[in-house]
């Protein structure tokens, strides 16, 4: 499955790379320098650095959930790619795993772009930042699996708009990317702990500004759990779609 994805990537890498890196970078520049002119520091960090590290999670989300949602649906409904693959000795679990792994590898790579941009604009580089691609990969795997699950559950590509509006947009706005969760009401802070993107933001920030071992183990555990649960749910959803 990975070979198939990598071979196909040669035909569309330009557009995917463009959309996956430019959009979060625009968020970073717009919020970092727009709000940054009004708010110099947040939670003890320069606002540009705060947003620069937070936008990594946005890049991971965009680079994983949209390609997996739309890509899976198109391959199933329009290109009949999975029919061809399932005629070979490959099962749904391998399809989902291959798709999610490849998308999360890409998310791990694209996720670093905002960080590099932030470094260009003054974020101090730190050796621990080398772990950011791994954090982005783990988070991207869960979001890729989420996208595959949605593609497996929904009957029409138009229904993806509901998911974008009710899940993805709130998730990305309440992950602590642009403002700290501590500014939200207490109930929203509690809910924030169930947002995998929040754990991604925290881990990336701690890689950039300094670890908090106990909290970071919990953040990592939450991301791993998110990935494992969504991986199994994605397999189940796609299995129901592909095997009748």
């Amino acid at each position: 499955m990975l070979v198939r994805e990598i071979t196909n990537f040669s035909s569309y890498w330009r557009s995917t790379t463009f959309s996956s890196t430019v959009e979060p970078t625009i968020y970073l520049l717009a919020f970092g320098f727009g709000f940054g002119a009004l708010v110099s520091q947040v939670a003890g960090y320069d606002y540009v650095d705060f947003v620069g590290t937070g936008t990594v999670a946005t890049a991971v989300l965009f680079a994983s959930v949209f390609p997996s949602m739309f890509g899976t649906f198109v391959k199933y409904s329009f290109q009949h790619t999975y029919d061809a693959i399932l005629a070979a000795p490959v099962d749904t679990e391998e399809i989902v795993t291959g798709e999610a792994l490849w998308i999360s590898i890409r998310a791990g790579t694209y996720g670093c772009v905002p960080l590099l941009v932030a470094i260009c604009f003054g974020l101090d580089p730190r050796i621990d930042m080398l772990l950011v691609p791994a954090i982005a990969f783990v988070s991207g795997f869960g979001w890729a699996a989420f996208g595959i699950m949605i593609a497996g559950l929904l009957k029409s590509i138009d229904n993806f708009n509901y998911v974008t509006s009710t899940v993805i947009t709130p998730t990305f706005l309440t992950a602590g990317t642009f403002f700290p969760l501590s500014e939200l009401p207490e109930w929203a802070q509690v809910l924030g702990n169930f947002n995998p993107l929040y754990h991604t933001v925290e881990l990336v920030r701690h890689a950039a500004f300094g670890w908090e071992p106990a909290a970071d183990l919990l953040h990592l555990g939450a991301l791993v759990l998110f990935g494992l649960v969504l991986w199994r749910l994605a397999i189940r959803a796609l299995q129901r779609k592909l095997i009748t």
Partner: protein
Amino acid sequence: MPALAISLRGVVKRFGAIVAVDGLDLDVPEGTCVGLLGPNGAGKSTTMKMLTAQVIADSGEIEVLGRRLPGESKIARAEMGVVPQLDNLDTSLSVEQNLRVFTHLYRIGRAERAAAIERALRIARLSDRRTAKVDELSGGMRRRLLIARALVHRPRLLLLDEPTVGLDPQVRQELWALIDALRSEGTSILMSTHYIEEAQRLADSVTIMSAGAAVATGPPAQLVVERAGREVVEVYGPPARLVEVEQAMTCAGVRTRRTGTSVALIGVEGHDGDLPDGVRRAANLEDVFVLLTGEEVR
């Protein structure tokens, strides 16, 4: 009796209230080509998908290459090739890249991959188009590439689901030659089709399906003799005349069928004195098909 590449016993598949396959029995002896013939909606494609475990039977037993399905489907699929009805090639990839991807999916070892691709390209006569993108290929070439893809791992069994549907007659004959060569080499083939001529030319044995069940099975020539006799008389004339002929022949115990512009009188041996004037011809599989399924042939 030769070993069976495919064996179905009492297979039933329902989609809600619709019974798509209704107690189907089907054998494909190793090294033979069996044609699955039936009108649209007869259950052919569902049957094909059950053989790759993309559709799971509600009841009955399915064995493919000695493996019980759906449990051992993955092992069986390693030795099967499938040519689907719908073109599902990766259109942005080249001919060779499409085949290379499937050498990986079929787990062909690194050392044998290049030779496997060359062989498949040669069989499908696509060696000189190896670098062409699928988008640039004609319909016939794309069909040949689908067959090459299904053959890249030297399967023992080939499933062809309507392999020539939508192709012009010249391309269809090219593909028939290719399928015939595979059969001659000993590859077991199950081919679903609703083209009578295709089944008659290529299949050692034909199973005619109607409403999800097998209504007749046997070598095409034997089926024709058993079900439609040796001779048919085709009577031409204005519609009113054709109605008269139909009524008279039915009363005389002769089976008839409409063929659009004529009435075909089937199994006319022994009725010479009662017959109206018409064109005599040998009975064929189309006569059997229409008699058994009640459907006109495309």
